[in-house]
């Protein structure tokens, strides 16, 4: 089960003019503006603590390598929202799991993991708003991640969107799923509401993503149409550092 999503972020700027977009299609003429596949620190806020959509979206965005993933979890997250379950995620990546009790230890382990270029990604889950997780801590994570070229994801639950140096900040929640082709009563492919509310490289916006699991060895797919047709955005929008409206 591989993921065939091109991480070419510039495509998302096209969504304003397209209702539905499959991300493998690369638009022409814009490929040299933003380099795809930038390893950096991204923050995902789960709107609900028991909602696994944030983890699902993050897993869909991980690079397709066989390198092991360092996954650091604090105790409260583990108790309140469970642990990653390999049978459901598929044995795509091998995971090195670190179970810790304090947020300070989680940040230490993540920072230490980002010194190791052999990792495929570093994932941290922090519950609430611990005082140690401030702008400085996120800045350190972001710079280390960019220096080591290892993507780093911070999953936050029951947290306020305080000051942070994360390059991309997402708000992810579940939406009612797509119809199931075989059983009208059952839920189908999961749909998520994605809200990129702060980004350094991209234009903030809202999307509805649909994640389709590949059947019979086919790669998984992530469809990401825009939630609203936003033709009224000003011309200068989408520059680095701008905040989404609404």
């Amino acid at each position, binding site marked *: 089960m591989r993921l065939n999503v091109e991480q070419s972020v510039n495509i998302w700027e096209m969504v304003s003019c397209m209702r539905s977009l499959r991300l493998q299609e690369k638009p022409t003429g814009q490929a040299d503006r933003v380099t795809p596949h930038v390893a950096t620190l991204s923050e995902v806020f789960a709107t609900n603590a028991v*909602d696994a959509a944030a983890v699902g979206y993050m897993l869909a965005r991980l690079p397709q390598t066989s390198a092991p993933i360092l996954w650091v979890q604090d105790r409260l997250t583990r108790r309140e929202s469970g642990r990653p379950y390999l*049978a*459901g995620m598929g044995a795509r990546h091998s995971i*090195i799991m*670190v179970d810790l009790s304090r947020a300070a230890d989680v940040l230490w*382990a993540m920072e230490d993991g980002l010194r190791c*270029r052999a990792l495929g990604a570093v994932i941290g889950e922090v519950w609430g708003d611990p005082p140690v997780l401030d702008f400085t801590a996120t800045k350190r994570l972001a710079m280390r991640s960019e220096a080591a070229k290892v993507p780093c994801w911070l999953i936050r639950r029951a947290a306020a969107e305080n000051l942070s140096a994360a390059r991309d900040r997402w708000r992810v929640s579940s939406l009612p799923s797509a119809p199931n082709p075989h059983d009208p*009563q059952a839920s189908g492919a999961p749909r998520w509401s994605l809200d990129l509310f702060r980004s350094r490289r991209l234009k903030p916006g809202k999307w509805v993503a649909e994640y389709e699991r590949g059947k019979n060895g086919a790669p998984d797919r992530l469809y990401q149409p825009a939630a609203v047709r936003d033709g009224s955005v000003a011309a200068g929008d989408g520059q680095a550092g701008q905040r989404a409206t609404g």
Partner: protein
Amino acid sequence: MDRQGNAPPDDVPLVLAREGHHGPVIHATNRSARLMGINIGARVVDMRAICPELQVEYADLAGDRAALDRLVLWVRRWCPWSVRDGEDGLILDTTGSDHLMGGETAMLVEMETQLSRLGLTARLAVAPTWGAAWALARFGPVRSVCGPDEATWKLGALPVTALRLEGETVLLLRRLGLKTIGAVMDVPRLSLTRRFVKAALASNPLMRLDQALGKIAEPVASVDAKPRIHVQTQLPEPILDPTSYLPALCEELCEQLAQTGQGCRSLHLVVYKTDGDVSWVDVATSASSRDPNHLLGLFRDKVEKINPGFGFDLITLAAGGVEPLQLVQNHLDGGSDDTLHLSRLVDRLSAKFGPRAVSRPVLRESHIPERSEDRIAALAGIAHAVIERPKERPIRLFDHPEEVRVLYAVPEGPPAQFIWRRQTYRVARYAGPERIAPEWWKDRPGTRLRDYFKVEDQTGRRIWLYREGLHEDGRGGDPRWFVHGCFA
């Protein structure tokens, strides 16, 4: 070899068992079991018939062997040559060293005293050859000492089992009427030679007899203890913090390791305090290493755990788990090695948070969700078993399923509404049930089956619920519902 001080009383018949071809067999017995007529090598079920109150424990064969290997080195206090003899014996070549203990008899008494202080019962004998000592220690009188020319008549009275022969050969000799070693000696040598000319050493009574009498040489090939790799620093004045001395110690230790082409898996730092006490810190690595910077980094937060007391004036650093280490160059330009970096990351994390905090989940063959995942050491190499999972599984699983109150159509309907964590969820869509039966070979009797449902509420949260048991299944009251995981 139970040295933890919790040995059972001697009047309880206790045996150790090991796995035989047809179920467990007796490996060792204590005194009262021996008096009840329990034979070593018999099947445990047969011996239970003789003695119903028999207590059976499983023998730790590998542990016994390792303990015996350590004992081989420990008995070097009496003589320079020692070797393990089978699974239950030691051979010491005490030639020329018995006079240091005041003669052979005094040496045997001294050995028995020292071994009993370790909590070990020993049967000892001195004889000119390996074979004779083996026989006398097991079948001879207590602490028997056999002179150079006494072997013939001292061995003559012993049974033929004392010749270190296989069971079939012993049986054959008994059937021939040869019950003692003396009887074997009296038989004309030519006829025995003709019979056993093609037999191997372990089933050849003549060769074994010649070994016991010293006509065939059987030297003691002693094992060598590995040289201990450790470094130390003597300080002119007692100090309280060893941090400034650690880099030099690590460098020196790694130099020693590099000279012998070895790496170490653990480090043992000991400080000797001026008030006559010691304090120590241990660190371990997941792959053998001899990089001083890496080894030094493992001590980073550990040194604070040393209690310096009034100061210490001697620091020693010893390498443990020493094994050969081949340095591999992956790149022609001497670039970085990924697996090395990974093992060092795991070392650093385990050194800081403890080895149990760092693990790696792997899939196992089981339908029970919590059993289909197992935790192994982070860098343990396992063959990647491809386990197909046709059913959809959640991506998050709770360690402990959380009980919820569910509104559902009795007896086996899907959930319509449930209250979880004081919040009401209305089920909009569901899939299921998927029935998972308990694993009867592992679970306790009375474990109830589970019916799993994947439900989706109106806001789109997809949750994995299960109902434990059925109505009127005779395994407890009404079925209970649990939340076990969340889908993406």
